[in-house]
C-alpha cells in the first residue's frame, strides 16, 4: 500500500506515555536531593590515583634501592667529582627551579648531593610512568561490573572492605601487569641517568645498566660489562619469576 509521505505525522508511531513510565520518571525526578553536592570528585577517583602512584612508586623504589648501589661503589672509588654535563647545567641554572609534578626543587640541591640524586632520578621515572599506568588502572576500575559493586554494598561492605576484598582482587591481573612492567622498566633505568647525572655524584646514581654501558663502551672493560649484564638479567628474571609465582597465588581472573 502506498502512502503519502508528506501527510505522515511521525508522532502517530508512538502511543501515549504509559502511566508506569511517567510514575517511574517523576519518582526519580522528585527523589533528587537539593543538598546533594554536584559531583566533581569521587572517592573512586582518589582511589585510582592512590593505586597508580603507590604501584609506580613501589616498583621504582624497589628497583632503585636494588640497583642504586648508593654508597657501595663510593667505597672503592672515592671520587666526589661531579660530571661535567651536570656541572654545566648547574652553572647555567644557578637559581632555576624545576617542577616535577607536585614537587618543585632546585636542580642544584637535588642532583649535586649524592644522598638525594637518586631520589631525583626516582621522582623523574615515577612521573614519566604515571600517565600510562593511569590509563591501565583506570580502565581496570571501570571494567569492574556494577552488579558486583552493588551486591557488595548491599551486603554492607564499607569503602575499605570494598577496596581490599572486591576492587583490588578484581583488578589484580592489571595490577600484576603494571607492577611487572614497571619493575622491569625501572630496573632498566638508564636514560635519565645518562642525561642528568652521568652516574654521579660519587657514583650515587650509577644503575646497573648505566654501569654496563660505561664499562663496555667507555672503558672498554668488556668482561665487567658482560658480567654486569648477566647479573642484570638474572635479577630481572628473578623478579619476573617471583611476580608470576605471585600471580598463581594472588591474582584472580573472572
Amino acid at each position, binding site marked *: *500500500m*502506498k502512502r503519502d509521505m508528506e501527510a505522515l505525522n511521525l508522532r*502517530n*508511531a*508512538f*502511543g501515549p506515555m504509559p502511566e508506569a513510565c511517567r510514575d517511574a520518571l517523576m519518582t*526519580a525526578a522528585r*527523589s533528587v536531593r537539593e543538598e546533594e553536592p554536584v559531583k566533581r570528585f569521587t572517592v573512586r577517583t582518589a582511589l585510582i590515583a592512590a593505586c597508580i602512584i603507590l604501584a609506580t612508586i613501589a616498583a621504582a623504589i624497589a628497583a632503585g634501592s636494588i640497583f642504586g648501589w648508593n654508597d657501595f661503589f663510593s667505597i672503592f672509588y672515592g671520587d666526589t667529582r661531579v660530571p661535567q654535563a651536570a656541572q654545566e647545567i648547574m652553572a647555567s641554572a644557578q637559581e632555576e627551579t624545576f617542577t616535577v609534578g607536585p614537587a618543585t626543587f632546585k636542580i642544584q640541591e637535588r642532583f649535586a648531593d649524592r644522598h638525594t640524586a637518586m631520589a631525583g632520578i626516582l621522582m623523574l621515572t615515577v612521573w614519566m610512568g604515571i600517565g600510562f599506568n593511569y590509563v591501565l588502572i583506570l580502565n581496570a576500575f571501570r571494567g569492574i561490573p556494577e552488579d558486583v559493586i552493588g551486591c557488595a554494598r548491599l551486603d554492607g561492605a564499607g569503602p575499605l572492605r570494598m577496596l581490599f576484598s572486591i576492587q583490588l582482587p578484581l583488578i589484580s591481573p592489571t595490577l600484576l601487569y603494571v607492577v611487572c612492567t614497571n619493575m622491569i622498566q625501572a630496573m632498566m633505568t638508564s636514560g635519565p641517568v645518562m642525561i642528568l647525572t652521568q652516574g654521579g655524584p660519587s657514583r650515587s646514581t650509577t644503575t646497573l645498566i648505566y654501569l654496563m654501558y660505561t664499562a663496555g663502551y667507555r672503558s672498554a672493560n668488556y668482561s665487567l660489562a658482560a658480567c654486569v649484564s648477566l647479573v642484570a638479567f638474572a635479577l630481572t628474571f628473578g623478579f619476573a619469576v617471583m611476580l608470576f609465582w605471585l600471580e598463581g597465588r594472588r591474582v584472580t581472573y573472572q
Partner: protein
Amino acid sequence: MDKGSFIAEIEACSEMMYRVAWSILRNETDVQDALQDATLKAWEKRNRLREERYFRTWVIRILINACYDTQRKHRKVVPLEKVPLQIPASAADPELAMALEAVPEKLRLPLVLCYSEGMSYEEAAEALGIPTATLRGRLRRGKDALRKELKAE
C-alpha cells in the same frame, strides 16, 4: 538549578523523553530504567548545563546515552536480535510504527528528533553529538528508508 525547576523541566519533557527512549529500547521495563537513570544522572551533572534554555537538548543527550547503557547491560542476557519487535498497542498508526522500527537505529533517531519532537537541525545534531551536515544526510537517508518500508507493507 533548584529542585522545583528541575522537576518542572523534566515533567515538561517527559512525553518526549518517553518517545525517544522507546524508539531505542522498544521495551517498557527498559524504558523505565533508562528514564530513571537519565533523570538521576542529569541531576548529578546539573552544573554542566550552561544555559537553562538548552535543557531539552541536553537531557535528550543524557537519555540517549542512558538508553545505550541499558541496552548494553541487557545484551549480556538476551541477544537483542532475538527480542521480538514490540509495537505499542496504543500507537495511533501501527503501520507507521512498524515501518519506523524497521529503519536502522542510526537513521531512526534523527527522524524521531526532527519530525516527531520538532527539534531544529542544530538542536538534534547537538543532542546526537554529530555535525549538522551529517544529521541532514542521515535524515535524508532515513526518509528514503521509511518510504521504502511503507511501500513494502
